[in-house]
């Protein structure tokens, strides 16, 4: 059986091997970008059906972000929303026969987690300045500095392993069951996979929001109490 931990290149562009996950990611990017462009091309005050659906999605994301951060969702909407929509589409792309979701290969979740790691630094520095962000590492007291530094790496790593492990194990289980009994038997597992995919996309977005918020809040100047 093929190892789920490594993927074989589909074809080569010069010296660069192109993995199947990358090709699927390109397709998802094209679909999402084209869809977003088509949806927002003619925005009207009285929305059409498609525009109303898109507004519903954006409103829901805004509400979730406001619930988590307690702040205005505008600065985070683009990043968190894109993360959620991309991971959801990637996880559900396994519905198309012959497509393995790119989040089930190691590279894509690792890249997404690296993005979250960088964005925590970006939003933290933007919220409290470089000094405020660095001071956040010394909370609640300076003895925690090594632990906080370690935590900032391990939480991104655990986001990577969580997304990869969940999606990959779903694909793996379906492959095993499909090799035993291919007709109709894997369908309940695939339905479970859809649920897992949606929950993981939500979790990834919410967790990155939580981490960004904690970095921003730690960096804010302390309010003098009493």
């Amino acid at each position, binding site marked *: 059986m093929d190892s789920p*931990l490594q993927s074989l290149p589909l074809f080569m562009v010069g010296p660069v091997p192109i993995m199947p996950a990358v090709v699927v990611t390109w397709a998802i990017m094209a679909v999402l970008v084209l869809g977003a462009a088509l949806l927002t091309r003619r925005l009207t005050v009285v929305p059409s059906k498609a525009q109303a659906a898109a507004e519903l999605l954006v409103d829901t994301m805004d509400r979730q972000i406001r619930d988590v951060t307690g702040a205005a969702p505008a600065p985070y909407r683009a990043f968190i929303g894109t993360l959620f929509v991309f991971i959801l589409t990637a996880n559900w792309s396994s519905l198309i026969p012959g497509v393995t979701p790119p989040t089930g290969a190691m590279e894509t979740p690792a890249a997404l987690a690296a993005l979250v790691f960088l964005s925590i630094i970006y939003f933290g520095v933007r919220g409290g300045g470089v000094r405020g962000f660095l001071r956040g590492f010394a909370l609640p007291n300076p003895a925690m500095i090594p632990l906080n530094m370690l935590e900032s790496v391990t939480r991104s790593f655990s986001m990577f392993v969580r997304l990869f492990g969940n999606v990959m194990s779903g694909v793996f289980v379906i492959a095993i069951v499909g090799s035993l009994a291919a007709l109709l038997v894997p369908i309940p597992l695939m339905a479970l996979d859809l649920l897992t995919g949606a929950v993981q996309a939500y979790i990834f977005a919410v967790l990155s929001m939580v981490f960004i918020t904690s970095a921003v809040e730690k960096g804010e100047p302390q309010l003098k109490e009493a």
Partner: protein
Amino acid sequence: MDYVNIVSIFCAAFAVSFGAIGPALAEGRAVAAAMDAIARQPESANTISRTLFVGLAMIETTAIYCLVIALLLLFANPMMP
């Protein structure tokens, strides 16, 4: 069959099976506590279930770690000939 293979397969099954016990118990307790909280305060069910999902994902990560370790043992074992 080399004894490294046998030990690796045994340890992979061992890691997944015993690694699943802790998260299973923990998730059960978390869900029970959340049910309790929702039964007491149905109006805050949204917040509770959102926090529950995030917490469950956190707990589940330990089991996923065990799975990844098992797969490493099976497919990317540096000791295997």
